[in-house]
């Protein structure tokens, strides 16, 4: 008989990976695609989300289940996680509660991060801003990598299992349901927002900020809202990614995986519309998956297949820029019917 997990694992792995990336590219699309804020440091707020997940729910669970105080979550990681997993597996309410709390707190922390960075968004011109945000994110990654108390430093830490109560066979189903529903919910809310006068306001700021000001728009305030909102989404992506991996490893949140690829997804799909972002995200994620499966047969390459992925990133970018700069699904302005 086929084991249910054998079917669930690949599907869940793919879908949850996609769901996390969808949030990242949605956030980028809000910033760059709609409002024209070039952010090369998306992974700053993702790291904030991952760190909140590393710090908050396990510490709370240790208190709730009275784990002996001499055990330290970072230093005795394996032991603590094993202890907590036993409790959490039979306590769905606490598990869900902790997870929801983590999402809310992380979203809040992400929004504060976005709010703080928005002060630079007002003051710096495009190129400086992009590089400055990249530098900020790199700083956060460096701290996360070398300061162990946060999230275990370079090697990261294992996380207790908050969907363990689904049972061993259905664990991946639990991840699938949890992560994709958060992602779908955020997608539809963003879509709704972008198809309102608020979305139109964002696009006007992208097109000409001075004109937007002279027709009475407080563009600084709007940019602040966009930074806070999208950084909140990015932090949620950090929570979900940590949850799906059952580990928080800060050094993996780097600029290539968590900024350059999302940029490519938005550009390929077509920026300034969320459907394009979705299409761009799913096509590039599928491509990367295919590459992973093809790796053994790529051994004829004169270099490691790992680098092939990075080269591909550049090639796709060039192709899109030259052949279809507006992306697979170009932005569609709202047409008015009638005579």
């Amino acid at each position, binding site marked *: 008989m086929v084991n249910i997990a054998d079917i669930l694992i690949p599907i869940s792995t793919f879908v949850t990976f996609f769901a996390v990336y969808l949030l990242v590219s949605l956030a980028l699309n809000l910033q760059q695609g709609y409002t024209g804020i070039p952010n090369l440091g998306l992974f700053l707020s993702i790291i904030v989300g991952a760190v909140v997940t590393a710090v908050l729910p396990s510490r709370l669970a240790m208190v709730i289940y009275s784990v002996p105080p001499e055990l330290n979550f970072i230093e005795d990681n394996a032991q603590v996680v094993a202890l907590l997993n036993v409790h959490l597996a039979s306590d769905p309410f606490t598990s869900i509660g902790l997870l929801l709390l983590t999402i809310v707190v992380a979203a809040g922390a992400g929004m504060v991060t976005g709010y703080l960075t928005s002060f630079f968004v007002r003051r710096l011109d495009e190129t400086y801003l992009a590089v400055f945000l990249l530098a900020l994110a790199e700083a956060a990654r460096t701290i996360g990598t070398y300061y162990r108390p946060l999230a275990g430093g370079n090697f990261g830490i294992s996380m207790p299992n908050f969907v363990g109560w689904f049972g061993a066979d259905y664990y991946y189903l639990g991840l699938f349901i949890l992560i994709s529903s958060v992602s779908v919910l955020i997608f539809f809310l963003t879509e709704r927002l972008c198809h309102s006068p608020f979305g139109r306001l964002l696009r006007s700021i992208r097109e000409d900020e001075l004109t937007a000001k002279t*027709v*009475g728009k407080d563009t600084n305030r709007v940019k602040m809202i966009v930074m806070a909102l999208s950084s909140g989404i990015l932090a949620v992506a950090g929570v979900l990614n940590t949850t799906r991996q059952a580990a928080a490893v800060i050094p993996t949140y780097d600029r290539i995986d968590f900024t350059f690829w999302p940029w490519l997804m938005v550009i390929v799909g077509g920026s300034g519309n969320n459907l394009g972002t979705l299409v761009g995200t799913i096509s590039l994620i599928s491509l990367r998956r295919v590459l992973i499966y093809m790796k053994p047969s790529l051994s004829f390459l004169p270099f490691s297949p790992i680098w092939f992925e990075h080269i591909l990133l550049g090639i796709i970018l060039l192709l899109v820029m030259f052949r279809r700069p507006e992306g697979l699904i170009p932005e569609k*302005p709202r047409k*008015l019917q009638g005579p």
Partner: protein
Amino acid sequence: MEILETIDIVKKFGEFRALNGVTLGVEKGKVTVLIGPNGSGKTTLINCLTGVYRPDEGTVRYKGDDITGKAPHKLRKIGIARTFQIPAPFKKLTVFENLMVSAGNQLGEDILKALARRIWLPQEEELTEKSLALLKSFDVEGKRNNLAYELSGGQLKLLELLRLLMEDVELCVLDEPVGSIHPVLANKIFSTVKAMSEKEGITFLIVEHRLDIAMRYADNVCALVEGKILCHGSPKSVLENEELQRTYLSLKNVRK
């Protein structure tokens, strides 16, 4: 009564004084036309009045309040609107969207209300009517679904003007509104302006080089030369000013 006053405005670019002590009053409910040679500082003055630049010295007063250096969006909220000499539309928005986004106090621009369609839909429909009516009155409703960057230079100039009519306005500052617009439309624009000032008491400050058209509609004329007001008064008196004749008008060949 003067709705807008500037007192000794100085604006420097490096060492160069683009405005060198401009003192000017704009009469409420009238059409004031600002003339002057290229590079005399007209656009710079407008930028200082509408919050785009902060003057290095001097004061701007609007209805008696000091508004020097206030941000453009705040000035728009208290009734000061402007157009740009070089049209600055929202290029990748349609003409219709360009107008819609220019309306003030939109419920749907609040991030929370934006999520609830029923809150903002009635207002959106009202504004749709309003913008279509505006487009119709200038015979350009056929362009409503065009992206702004597809428009011609003259159409863009018109869009600049229509954009500021989407919200209540008390003082309109127009920077060369009819440059590159054909005479029929140019006259129509100026007669609209005149009607608005006469019927609704809206004040206009208009920079314009096409004196043949502008002078017909002007109540007051003001000449700016090398960053200073040379003369100010009725169209007739300004056009008769000898120094202005020499520096500017002789080149324009204007009949009074």
